[in-house]
Each structure stands twice: as structure tokens, then as C-alpha cells.
């Protein structure tokens, strides 16, 4: 029973990991850029959460999800409009990589300078300690809500991309930017919004994770590797695959932690290697 609870909790943690991967996959899918600063934004979301919780102690922490996500959208939009569009235009795939890598080094060390290198966590209040008993399993209420929120966000984004005007434009730009341009679409503006969404997801997920796990300014690297593994395990370009990939990693990490405390991330990485060896197209396979 103990093991089953671990697996269930891992799957719930996976909801957050899925959100990490979602932003990375979205940006890559639309503009063929891998944002190497993705992990730093995840950690930045956590630090923004610490700041806001300190500023507004009377509010329950979960309310702050909204301002963190909005700040993420604004930051992502500004980042894309300010510098990344320029790098995308260069046409050389190495340019955005170097740009975002330089940004990640800057952000990581700026966070060390401003917030210190100590481990922190956000106290999520009563919600994080409450739990429900389900068929004899003790499941935290908080991870359950997080998974529900993750599923909701996945669904919302899926709907947005499939059925809205904005989604049609995004897909058009992803498939044929030149053709979209002829139809009166400015790809750079679409990119701004897509990056805004991706960073909003990253910072929101980072904020939520910080209520469960300790973080430091250096956690960004590990978070980014997880986001990347989620995308590969799920299958490049697959939407719901990312959620499944997140769950696989979440389960691997918690089971690993149980087998061998402080080695959780190692097991998550090893699962990734196994997938790469035996299912190189990921859980969802390649759609094209």
C-alpha cells in the first residue's frame, strides 16, 4: 500500500513536470527554439512566489498563482520581443541557443546575488498538509489539486490551439511562416504571445512546485533537464504525451527516492535513458 501511495503521488507530481515540458515544447514547436533559460524562469516563479507570500501574508498562497502567471506572461512577451525574435531571424539555429544559454547564466547568478544561495520553500498553508483517504491510501489534497490544475491548463491550451482564431494563427506560423506572413500575420508578434504563454506556464509550475520541494537559484538546471526529458519521453510534438511523460518522470523520481533517499533525480534520468534506448520516438510516437 505504501508503494501504491508513492506511485500515485509521483503521478500527481508529474502534473507539474508536464507543465514544465509544455512550455518548452510549445516554444520549440512554434519557433524551433529551445529556451535554455526555461529552468531559470521556473525558479524565478518560485522566488516571485516567496516575495508575494511575504508581501501579502493574509492571502492564501494558492491565490497568488494568478499574479505569478501574469508576471510570467509579461516577462516572456518582453523577452521574445526584446531579444529572442532577433536571434530567431538570424536563421542560424545556434544563435538562439547561445542567447538563451547566456540569459540562463545571467538569470541564475542574478538570483544568487539578490536572493542568496540558500535552500528555500514556500509555506503553502493548510492546503499543503491536508490530505484525503481514498481506499485506504493517504493522498495529499494539494498534489491532487495541482494535477487537476495541470490537466485543466493542458486542456485549455489544447482548446486554444485547436479551436480559436489565435490557435489557427499559431499553427499557421509554425507550419509555414512565410505563407502566414503573406496572409497578413506578423510571426514575431505571434512568437511574443507564445513565449509569454510558455513562461507563464513555467513560472506558475515553479511556484506550485516550490510549495512541495526545496529550491535554490541553482535548481533551474535540474528543472530544465526535467522539462526536456518530459518532452522527449512524451514524444516530440505530442501534446498529451507531455503530461504522460511528466507522470512517468514524477513516478520514477519518487520511487527512486524511496529506494535510495537523495537519489530521486538519478532514477528520473535513468528512465529517460531507457526510453531513449528502447522507445526513441517517445510514448506518443511521432505524428508526422
Amino acid at each position: 500500500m505504501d508503494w501504491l501511495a508513492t506511485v500515485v503521488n509521483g503521478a500527481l507530481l508529474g502534473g507539474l513536470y508536464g507543465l514544465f515540458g509544455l512550455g518548452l515544447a510549445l516554444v520549440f514547436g512554434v519557433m524551433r527554439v529551445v529556451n535554455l533559460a526555461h529552468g531559470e524562469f521556473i525558479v524565478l516563479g518560485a522566488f516571485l512566489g516567496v516575495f508575494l507570500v511575504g508581501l501579502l501574508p493574509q492571502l492564501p498562497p494558492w491565490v497568488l498563482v494568478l499574479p505569478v502567471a501574469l508576471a510570467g506572461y509579461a516577462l516572456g512577451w518582453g523577452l521574445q520581443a526584446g531579444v529572442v525574435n532577433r536571434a530567431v531571424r538570424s536563421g542560424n539555429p545556434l544563435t538562439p541557443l547561445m542567447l538563451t544559454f547566456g540569459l540562463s547564466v545571467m538569470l541564475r547568478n542574478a538570483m544568487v546575488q539578490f536572493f542568496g544561495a540558500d535552500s528555500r520553500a514556500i509555506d503553502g498553508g493548510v492546503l499543503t498538509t491536508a490530505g484525503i483517504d481514498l481506499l485506504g491510501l493517504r493522498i495529499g489534497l494539494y498534489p491532487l489539486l495541482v494535477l487537476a490544475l495541470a490537466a485543466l491548463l493542458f486542456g485549455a491550451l489544447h482548446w486554444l490551439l485547436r479551436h480559436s482564431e489565435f490557435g489557427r494563427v499559431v499553427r499557421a506560423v509554425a507550419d509555414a511562416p512565410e505563407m502566414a506572413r503573406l496572409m497578413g500575420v506578423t510571426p514575431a508578434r505571434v512568437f511574443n504571445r507564445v513565449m509569454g504563454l510558455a513562461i507563464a506556464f513555467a513560472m506558475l509550475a515553479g511556484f506550485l512546485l516550490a510549495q512541495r520541494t526545496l529550491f535554490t537559484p541553482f535548481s533551474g538546471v535540474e528543472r530544465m533537464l526535467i522539462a526536456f526529458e518530459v518532452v522527449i519521453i512524451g514524444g516530440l510534438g505530442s501534446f498529451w504525451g507531455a503530461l504522460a511523460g511528466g507522470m512517468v518522470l514524477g513516478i520514477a523520481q519518487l520511487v527512486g527516492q524511496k529506494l535510495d533517499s537523495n537519489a530521486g533525480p538519478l532514477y528520473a534520468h535513468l528512465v529517460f535513458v531507457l526510453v531513449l534506448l528502447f522507445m526513441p520516438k517517445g510514448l506518443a510516437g511521432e505524428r508526422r
Partner: protein
Amino acid sequence: MKRLSWVAVAALAGTALFAPRFADGGLLRLAAEILLAVGMAQMWNLLAGYTGLMSLGHQLFVALGAYALFETTQRLGIAPWWGLPVAGLAGAAAAALLAPVLFRLRDAYFAIGLWVFAEIGYLLVSKSSGLGGSGGRALDVSALEDVESFQAIGFWIAAAIGIGMPLAVGALMRSRLGLALLTVRDNELAARSIGVDVWRVRFVAFVISGFGCALAGAAYYMGGMFVSPDSAFDINWVVMMMFATLIGGIGTIAGPVFGVLVWYALRELLTTVFGLQGGWYLIGMGAVAVAASLYAPRGVWGLVARSRGPKDVGAARPAKSDALEG
């Protein structure tokens, strides 16, 4: 190569030969560090600049080489430099084993895939007490007769690597394989159409790159006589290699050499002249990388090489044509 370049190389080698006589320990150590950085950046560039495989996991090879040398030295009770070939071979073997898996991933996914393997190596070494665990381990110097001359020998090895690797890459570019590498760099599709086995070319470049980085990493930690997982698996190794290559000029031989000099000059400038502390210095370096990617994506050497025309085999990669891909 032009006669002038050979004179420069000979002068450099001559200086290196006598440097331990007149330079003090600190200066010698800095010079060795720069020379080894040149070797590593050159190896990173061989992969990224010529085969389009950008790596963010080359710290894996640096650490692997270091640990292979430390382990060999201790197990066999020999002088540390005899462990260097083992270190290089360990790097080559790791690259050969990882290539079939990693080559399934393209572009940034290859880069981060290798990074994951470096992270796995870091976690495994940190956990294994036999290799010193997370605290690190000291070099076994019991087989050495005197430690004084060890420093000089360490410097000469660094000089051989720092001067030899750019020359070796230059010679490689003149070989059949080098021509294949250059065609892959310039136009992968055209390379395939004239019968270049792109996978094999990439594989060979990856193995050489792993070999060279492991060798340079082993020499670096041999000089320091201490290695820890936090230092050897540090992503900042890759930051340096990438920065040097991109600032200097990717896909050129002189570029990484020039870039390493810029890197160390900037480091000295930011830390001593402007007095920036560790974190601020890295922020400054990140800012330089961002600015360089926006304003000089082909590097400083790339600009020079372009004005000299395409005769230089290391000439910068031309703007990628989308005509064949669309």
C-alpha cells in the same frame, strides 16, 4: 599553413619549453589553464562548428578524463602522466558508446541529451565512495620522485595539448575526413548527395572530441592534484568552450584560440579591474554571450576570415540557405 603561422607556433613552443625556468608557480598555472582551455574549446568546436552538433554536456568528458587519470594513477601506482592515455581513451570510448543513442536527437535535443548524461555521471560519482564521493579526492603522487619537476612537466603537457590540438585539427581538415567534415558543415544535403556518410563523419568527430576533452580535463586536474564532482562536472566548462568558440568564430581553427584569450582577458578585466565578485562576473559573461549572439553571431574571427575571402579552410560558416530545405 602560412609561414608566419609556423613561426608563431615555433616561438610559442620555444617559450613554453623554457617558461618553467623563469615563470613563478601562479603564472605557470594560469598559462597551463589557458592552454588546456584552448584544447577543450578546439574539441568543442570540432563537433559544433564542423558537424553542427552543439553539445552542452562536454563537462562529462572533462570529468571522465580526470577521474580515469586519478583512478589509474592510484590503482597502478605509476606517475600521473602515464594515466593521460587512459583518460583520453575513456573519453573516446564514452563518446563511441553514447553516439548511437544521442544521434537520434537533433540540434538542441542532442545538446541537452548529452547534458543529461553528464548529470547522471555527476550523480553516480557523487554517490560512489570508491571514487571519493561528493567530497572529491586527491591525486596519488606517491610514485613521483620530486613534486617540483612535476609542476614543470604538467605545464609542458598542457602546452603540448594547447598548441598541438589546433595543429591537429588543422591537419585533420586537410585529410579526406576533414574534407567530408567541411562539406557537412557547409551543406549537409549536398554532402549526402556526393556520397558522404554523414552519420559516420559525425561519429568520428564526436569520438575525437570526447578523446580530446577527456585528455585536456585529465591534464587540468592532474595539475591541480585534486578533483571533485562539483568542479569537474561543472556546466561552466561548457560555458567556457561555447563562449570561446562563438566569440572567436565557430567553424574556424583560429576562432576558439582567439576566443579563449578573450575569455581569460575578460575574466581578468571583470574580476581585477572592475573588481566584480564571482556571481557578478558570471552575469557579465552571460551578458557578453547574449550581446555576441545578437551582434556578432559568427564571432570576431568570422568577421576577419570573411574579409580575407574563402581561401582559409577554416572560414566561417556561410549563412544557411533555406532554399534546399524548404
